[in-house]
């Protein structure tokens, strides 16, 4: 009969230690909810701010709503030849330039705007619309290196009348992560 690798007494001691450790672990587990809760910081999964046009903070003229997958990249006021205008830059997804333009035009015509003119230089398609004295100009161009396989397809610029924030006191309306109205001296955050 081969000699056991571990003497029986030693083995008994090991078993005893094992049982004690197991009991201690079970005791800690059962008592653990009495020790309080750890508070993770969540900082590697910051909340996703709502889409700029979905909040209604800076609405489009006439309450127009885009039925087009898009993400707003930058919003702000610029000085143009006819005074200050709002410039909203974004990207359209899933559809090509002409389809994206058709949907953006539709968004404005359905709230009373009428198409005034249309220009196509081969890359950029621009459409001007007006509702009385209110004018809107939409430009769209496909991004180089994108095709029907890519989600993001092109860029658009909406040239709009300046708008005041709908709810100035709502912190959401002053959060650039959502509004995309970036402060030039913005400190990096998450």
């Amino acid at each position, binding site marked *: 009969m081969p000699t056991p690798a571990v003497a029986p007494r030693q083995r008994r001691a090991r078993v005893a230690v094992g049982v004690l450790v197991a009991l201690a672990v079970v005791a800690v587990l059962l008592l*653990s909810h009495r020790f309080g809760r750890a508070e993770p910081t969540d*900082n*590697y999964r910051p909340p*996703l701010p709502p889409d700029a046009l979905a909040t209604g903070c800076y609405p489009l003229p006439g309450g127009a709503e885009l039925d087009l997958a898009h993400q707003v*990249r930058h919003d702000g006021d610029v000085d143009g030849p006819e005074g200050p205008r709002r410039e909203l830059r974004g990207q359209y997804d899933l559809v090509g330039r002409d389809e994206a333009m058709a949907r953006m035009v539709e968004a404005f015509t359905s709230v009373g705007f009428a198409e005034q003119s249309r220009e196509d230089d081969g890359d950029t398609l621009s459409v001007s619309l007006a509702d009385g004295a209110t004018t809107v100009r939409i430009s769209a161009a496909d991004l180089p290196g994108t095709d029907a396989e890519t989600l993001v397809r092109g860029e658009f610029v909406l040239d709009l009348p300046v708008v005041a924030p709908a709810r100035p006191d709502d912190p959401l309306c002053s959060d650039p992560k959502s509004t995309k109205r970036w402060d030039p001296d913005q400190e*990096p955050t998450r």
Partner: protein
Amino acid sequence: MSALETRLVALARRLPPPPVLLGWLVVAHVVMKVLLFPLVTSSPPHGDEQAYLNGGMALSNAIRDLAAFTAPDRAELDRNLVASGWFMPGMSIVTAPLYLVLPDAGPALVRGYLGLVTLVLHVVVLRAVARTLGHRWAVVLAVFPGLVPMWVFFTYGAWGDLAAGLVLVLLVLRLVEVFRALRRDAAPTWRDGTAIGLLSVAALYLRSSTVILLAGLGVLTLLTALLLLRGRDRWRAVGASALAGVLFVALLAPWSAYASSVLGARVITTTTVPTVKANTFGDREQVCFGECDPDSTLWFRPLRYAREVGRATGTSEVEVLQQMSDHALRDVTVGGYLDQVDHNLVAYALQPAVFVDHVVPEDGRGPVGTVWGWVVMGTTWLVYFPTLLLVAAFLVRVARRSLEARLLDVLAKLCLGALLVQPFVHVAGGRYWTTAAPFFGIAAAIVLRERMIGTGRAPAPADGVATARDAAVVRWLGRFQGLLAVASAAVAVVLLAAVVI
């Protein structure tokens, strides 16, 4: 150099026998740990350390809830353990027990706990090395990385790099044993398969970048077994490998499934590779199909954008990140790529102690701590850079003294080669070397030993060739070593050319 060598050899002769020396080196390691602890006691988590600790906290809460028979806070777990899928949860699992008992543990407790865990792991590794390779090799690892101040400093960190390196050593030791058995015509046992599967998945859980190494070692071990064994033994080897594979997959699957369900896409380990490639090698102004938001860091800007596109298109952010990466990488040139690889290699290898300046208390260190930090940096450089030169020499040379030496040479080359793939696909930083550190020690020692034997300062060992099978094994190992050395040299030449041109 020669005079220095003579002196070193004379000094080595006066040292106590390896087992005793090993004991003293462990004591020295512990003393160094104790001396370095005050540097980190009040240093809050730096960067990604917070992510790993968040995971540990959320996991401890989930365990707490389950033990109290209540439903765990799934949202909290999603946000902190998976978060954006950037990190494997190994270090979160390691820290969860601490938070289970002490939910409010601050930096001192967390770092003390991590220091203890890594101490135990270090000692386990040294014991295993002594058992498999002998006490001399354990002495080597007890010196490098065991006595490299910055490596000891990192033992208090919550990143998984260092622990992954130690687990890899355990895996390599097991492979050495498997190979020895193969020489005796013995197939790997179920026990070997179990150990290899468990150690591999542990290394992967600690650091996802080890995946290339794990895959490479796994395939090569299986191929070697198939080549050397015949008949039933061959099938046993296949069985043991299958067991290792099944264990690996079975233990990885819960994580993959969980991360995939949270992120709504197939995630096997982590989601970082596309963004990392785009940020590292691509046009940074094209990462978000144009410029990213101006307000955030390099890693968080693309993430938010990907989530926005995902929301707009009803796609998973993981898929969006892949497309963003492809877009930013459209115009990468070979020259631009190699240039960036050089940068990454520099960041990987040439700033070993930069984290002394990162892991600091919120209000700084004060004069004594600052000087202490400099000491850590300076002493690390003194040990690290000469070793790095030896590692470079190791990669392009071939150890020929004995069959065992050849085997260790091949395994160390494979490990270092596979770990150094990282700078070719990933931006690197001053903590990545800690994964490779044990292999740096082994590589440097192989070069020194070959030189000592070559110059007659140490007796040549028996070549270990007893049978015709051994002779064939040596021939094949030699060819493989040559291939690895030539490949390393070729890569080095290309990278040097990229610097010069």
